């Protein structure tokens, strides 16, 4: 039989399942390494940054990276329009990007998973109500909503995190609900119910653990999204306020110097891209390893 199939199906269209593990884990290792480096650099920023990120040295404004003609040894990635060291600002900016991203994902995960569990488990009116609210948040352009709210309430660190979580919890709610809909029909749930478990316990002890896989995968992919989101808000002038250096702010500063000083916008952009790339690779790997059938 297998020989017949071998004739009919050329080697290059083998089924998608059973993808080579080793290639995937190379990607994962790469992603994890990059992420650990960036995370480590952010945590250790006060120790390893060569300069104070807010220190302005007006005599050394707009110096290019050190390998260019006018570059300076002590500023490896150059300086910005106020003479601040770009490398140091990127290192410190990572603290905001990763910190805000992680907090926002945690918060939106808590809200989304709770509502998704309730919707999927109880069904009926609860489900209909929660899902309509989800639809509402999907329909509203989240970046405008976030900008409006942050502008009205003031751009503090906490407000930015709250708004980001408020506009993204639906991603968790949708996926958890869909998963719980099928989990609650399984035998072990009715078994647990028959043994007299209360629904709260049923949810937390029996349903939630079985819905963890998609939650972990979504959380990883959402972290990548949140990092881009945070820097987009900063870029538009509504993120965490200066003088705190953030990658988004640096990009937005660099925007005015695109024609004359390319390094201002290029390096913070690279930092964002590398971080997001690493997180995405990790998320892909988690999905392929934990549940290859998951469609996200």
């Amino acid at each position, binding site marked *: 039989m297998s020989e017949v199939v071998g004739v009919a199906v050329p080697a290059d269209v083998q089924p998608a399942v059973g993808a080579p593990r080793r290639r995937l884990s190379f990607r994962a290792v790469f992603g994890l390494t990059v992420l650990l480096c960036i995370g480590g650099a952010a945590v250790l920023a006060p120790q390893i940054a060569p300069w104070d990120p807010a220190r302005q040295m007006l005599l050394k404004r707009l110096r290019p990276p050190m390998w260019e003609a006018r570059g300076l040894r002590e500023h490896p990635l150059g300086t910005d329009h106020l003479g601040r060291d770009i490398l140091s600002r990127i290192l410190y900016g990572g603290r905001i990007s990763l910190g805000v991203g992680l907090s926002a994902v945690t918060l939106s995960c808590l809200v989304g998973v709770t509502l998704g569990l309730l919707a999927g488990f109880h069904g009926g009116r609860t489900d209909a109500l929660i899902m309509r609210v989800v639809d509402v948040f999907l329909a509203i352009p989240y970046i405008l909503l976030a900008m409006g709210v942050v502008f009205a309430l003031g751009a503090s660190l906490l407000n930015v995190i709250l708004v980001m979580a408020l506009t993204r919890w639906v991603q968790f709610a949708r996926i958890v609900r869909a998963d719980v809909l099928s989990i609650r029909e399984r035998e072990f749930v009715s078994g647990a119910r028959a043994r007299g478990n209360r629904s709260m316990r049923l949810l937390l002890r029996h349903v939630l653990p079985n819905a963890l896989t998609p939650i972990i995968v979504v959380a990883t992919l959402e972290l990548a999204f949140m990092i881009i989101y945070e820097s987009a808000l900063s870029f538009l002038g509504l993120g965490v306020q200066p003088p705190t250096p953030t990658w988004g702010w640096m990009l937005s500063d660099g925007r005015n110097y695109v024609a004359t000083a390319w390094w201002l916008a290029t390096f913070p*952009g690279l930092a964002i891209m590398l971080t997001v790339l690493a997180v995405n*690779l990790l998320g892909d790997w988690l999905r392929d390893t934990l549940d290859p059938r998951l469609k996200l």
Partner: protein
Amino acid sequence: MFAYLLRRLGQSALVLLGVSIIVFGLLHLTGDPTRLLLPLEAREEDVRQLRALLGLDDPLWVQYVRFLARAVRGDFGVSFKHQVPALTLIFQTLPATLELTAAGLGLALVVAVPAGILAALRRNSLIDAVCSVGVLLGQAMPVYWLGLLLILVFAVKLGWLPAAGRDGLASLVLPAFALGAFSMARIARMARSGMLEVLAQDYVRTARAVGVRAFLVTYKYALKNAAIPLVTIVGLEFGVLLGGAVITETIFAWPGVGRLAVDAIFSRDYPLVQAIVAMLATLFVVINLVMDMLYTYLDPRIVLVRSRQ
């Protein structure tokens, strides 16, 4: 089918009602909207005058009903900054945004669908590798950074294309590419995995076994079924692009709704902000309704599954 359609319409109406509550709430976030609407140095009597003018002394639900009654008729009030009805401003700028969004989505589809299919057909080849690197980069590049890089390379260094403004087809290329890149990556990925899945189906194997030509199997049988999930993606992607247009338009000085919105937020022009959010949300709901209808037409199994839920 008809019942499903009716229920789907009802859902859309409910969603729009929810949108209206949020849009209304946007102005009342700080408790006292006059603080948002007036400059900080406004005098006490100006504040009182505006409160009376806007009917802010009424109970909240009365204000909401009044707001909703006007909004349904398309009346979101007059823009403070431009002194023109908010809706008029939106209709002036919407064509530019739709042009940009359609170009971005079109570009994404034209590049991503063939690339994804080719990657699936030549799995693990060089083409596949190039595609997956492109997908990874496309998903990791923030639109504002990509936009800046495009300006740096194609407008500043090479001088091939204009860096900003809306003046003919040439000025559309860079913003459309910047906006479409993320969707391009996602669609290519979906197209690839969708095609791989279909190619592994029994009917494809059977078709090959009975000697149907490879060309026909790929492009007639497999492609048709692989295209179905792409239709829903296009609807959702359109919403993503409308949101992304806010940033893209800011970078490229594209005179669309997104730039109008950013401008309105910073100049405390809340009637205009409310109108824009409401209009974009409505657009999203309508497009997804249409896409859903199209979807059930392409794949009749959907209605059955959905009516059971």
